[in-house]
């Protein structure tokens, strides 16, 4: 665990300014097998310390890869000088952030640093299984990885903290030859989530059912896949896609820094943005009585993390904030300011963003559609600050007369979030979480996202 060289430097914090010191270690272990060849075998670590100082409405920041008593003092001095430079030339006449009760939240513990051999052997076992059982595949890739982020935080105003966020996942990608002679692809995250690799995976055999399921889907797609008819259609978005909707199309527009930058959510606060059925929350550490996929207890500004309720019964009721933006919007900060590396400054980021489940049964939702689509898997999602979104869809089915019909080839769906959410007329009572990806916004960041199946209207690309 990171040694505390920070707390005894509090005497150096300038009065009248907000100061944060953060020591951080990011680790990543990864093995990649492509058609049986080990093309990736890497262990990386990034460790260092940073300081951020808020003065006269602007921030100064500095970081270094050395972590000693002297370098902690050095980054603090450099951050203070940077804040002073910017305050002199572009200060906003603001005082320090509102005072918060001091506290210290510790969730860090000693992690097992799983040996590289374990990752490689696990990947080889899965690859051998796929190669032996499914020799007709054009290509197969197995990625086995674990990463973690340990942060020691010391602030002049608010919560100090010591946290750790380990994740581990297995990704399996398959390519099969389609009926038209063109390759088709699918990938799946097999198991995994919060925790080290040895906590999440015990033996390769436990993954075989999910791998078989992936092969079954790619065979359906390769043999019988069809392109959907382009146009505005009634669809059911499965939980993976509704989670992506919650994150990409709604979540980013209600990050307060993007609201200040002109996102569509600015003029929509306290207005209807979805049907009565739609509720959306960015959870901190607990949801539905269980830990969230990636629990956050304190953010990197020293704010104790609480849930950010964003849409309630179809009305936009809040944003995700830093301490500075919360003051601007007269909202309570909820602990969304997060940094990826020691050398990154905290930005407003999502944590575990989800559409809340409803009361409908999935089978009833399918039965209610005469001509539409059930969309299940995605490989990509992008959205605009206008709320216009685009998701790649890699697997799904036609729905004809209330029943699932032919599987789909790759397509794209698009829409405008706050228009599309108003068309939601059924939401299933079960939800799916995902946490294997990285959100990109100046810095990458691990995030959780989730949702139930939702019935709505979107534009589907066809071909």
């Amino acid at each position, binding site marked *: 665990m990171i040694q505390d060289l920070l707390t005894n430097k509090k005497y150096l914090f300038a009065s009248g300014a907000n100061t944060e010191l953060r020591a951080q270690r990011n680790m990543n272990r990864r093995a990649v097998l*492509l*058609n049986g*060849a*080990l*093309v990736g*075998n*890497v*262990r*990386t*670590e990034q*460790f*260092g310390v940073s300081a951020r100082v808020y003065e006269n409405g*602007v*921030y*100064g*920041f*500095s970081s270094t*890869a050395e972590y000693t008593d002297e370098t902690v003092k050095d980054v603090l001095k450099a951050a203070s000088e*940077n804040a002073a430079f*910017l305050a002199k*030339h*572009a200060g*906003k006449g603001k005082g320090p952030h509102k005072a918060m009760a001091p506290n210290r939240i510790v969730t860090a513990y000693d992690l097992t640093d799983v*040996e*590289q*051999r374990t990752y490689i052997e696990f990947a080889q076992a899965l690859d051998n299984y796929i190669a032996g059982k499914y020799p007709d595949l*054009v*290509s197969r*890739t197995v990625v086995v990885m674990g990463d973690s982020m340990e942060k020691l935080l010391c602030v002049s105003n608010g919560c100090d903290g010591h946290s750790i966020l380990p994740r581990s996942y297995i990704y399996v990608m398959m390519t099969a030859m389609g009926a038209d002679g*063109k*390759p*088709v*692809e699918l990938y799946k995250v097999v198991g995994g989530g919060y925790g080290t690799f040895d906590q999440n995976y015990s033996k390769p055999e436990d993954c075989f059912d999910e791998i078989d399921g992936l092969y079954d889907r790619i065979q359906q797609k390769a043999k019988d896949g069809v392109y959907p008819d*382009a*146009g505005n259609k009634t669809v059911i978005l499965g939980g993976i896609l509704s989670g992506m909707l919650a994150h990409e199309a709604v979540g980013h527009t209600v990050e307060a820094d*993007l609201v*200040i*930058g*002109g996102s569509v959510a600015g*003029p929509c606060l306290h207005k209807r943005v979805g049907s009565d059925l739609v509720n959306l929350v960015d959870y901190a550490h607990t949801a539905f009585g269980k830990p969230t996929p990636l629990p956050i207890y304190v953010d990197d500004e020293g704010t104790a993390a609480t849930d950010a309720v964003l849409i309630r019964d179809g009305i936009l009721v809040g944003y995700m904030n830093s301490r500075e933006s919360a003051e601007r919007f007269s909202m309570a900060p909820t602990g969304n300011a997060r940094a990826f590396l020691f*050398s990154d*400054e905290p930005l407003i980021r999502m944590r575990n963003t989800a559409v809340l489940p409803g009361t409908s049964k999935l089978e009833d939702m399918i039965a209610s559609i005469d001509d539409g689509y059930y969309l299940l898997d*995605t490989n*990509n999602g*992008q959205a*605009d*600050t*206008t709320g*216009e979104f685009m998701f*790649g*869809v890699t697997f799904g089915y036609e729905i004809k007369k209330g029943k699932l019909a032919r599987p789909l080839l*790759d*397509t*794209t769906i*698009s*829409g405008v979030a706050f228009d599309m959410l108003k068309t939601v007329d059924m939401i299933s009572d079960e939800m799916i979480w995902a946490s294997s990806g990285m959100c990109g916004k100046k810095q990458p960041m691990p995030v959780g996202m989730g949702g139930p199946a939702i019935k709505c209207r979107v*534009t589907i*690309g*066809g*071909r």
Partner: protein
Amino acid sequence: MIETLKKTAQAAVAALQDAGADKTQANVSYTVTHEFNVDGGEFSLFRTLFDKQLAMTAIEGGKKGTVAQNRYDEKTIAESAKACLEAAASAQPDENWDFAPVSQNEDFVLGQVKPDTDRLFFRCQELMASVKERFPKIIMEQMIVAHKEICKAQANSYGVLFSTHEGCYEVQLMFSGHDGDKASSFFGSGVIADSLDRPFLEMGSLAEDLENVQKQIETTGVSGKFEGTMVVMPGCLGSLFYSLLSDFAGEGGLLSGTSPWKDKLGEKVADERITISLAPLDERIVCGNRTTGEGFRAEDFDIIQNGKLNAFYLGLYASNKLKLPRGKNDSFNVIVAPGDKPIADIIASIDKGILVGRFSGGQPASNGDFSGVAKNSFLIENGKIGRALSETMVSGNMADMLNRLRAISTEQVADGMTVLPYMAFDGITISGK
């Protein structure tokens, strides 16, 4: 600093050999960043970063392992050498792993190695003021302007020893147009420069991008579906070609066997007017890589030359495994040769089509099929650029597209990373709601 890094890289190579590796490589760097940030149209942050990186790779009996971290003291090097050999020991042997043989070692100095911070801040203030004056409907969601000084050294067990000391200025803008409650899509634009002699707004396509976005506040969709011409703006072409070259000419598509070009080296794959180069040494590229990650001296090369597939974009491992020539650099400094018509003439020749500034699409399939939303785009009708579009999708196939070239513009945009013209492709499916 450079001499220290060279010695550190050699020490890391020696440590790996002492630990028992047959072939070894080390890359060491020290980076100092000075960065100003603007958020929501106001200065928000000034940061200075001091970072180190050490990557050590060992090949032992054909087994390869890599360990990377941001420290390079003696103890870390010794521990990393051990960890690297342990990682390699678990791998299966593959005789295709290797590093570059020794050639002529060299010390490179590129760009503006030290920042002029006061002048950099002045250029930032000037840019903000100019945008406010010339493009009053633009909100600068984020502006990041930085100088990066990078000292790096690379050594391997064959005797390769390169160093580079480089510095450049980077500008990244994210902005949107606003009029009351109406807003355009956001747009990102950037440049890399090796001097502060000119205002940022005169560089790359920043001014044109800001002007276009200001025209995109009022948008409408297209009705139905039609086949037309897609004119891709230079800023959008880079991301499209990145997908194309990675999937068709890169290691992923070739090692997996899914690339449609896997058997087409030397054959025609595109219209004969198309030449696509990767050229980090071109004078319009700022601080392009002088060496590859595997220790080769970088050289410019054409991937597509007058429509023929001239080379693949392969590293040494993939080259050895596939028995194909390796790519002569590992940059993505794409240069597309200019055409023979001004963009105005190309637009004037199009009856119905779309001018695309940004493509928001799913990952193109390995067979080249793509489908996505045309963002920051305009309708082209009867030879004229018309209204700005929203909720408009474009789809097609990248391999087909290269053979349906209508024209390439004489104009090119150089942003320090790429040099790209406008390109017009026929036969693209364009659809609305």
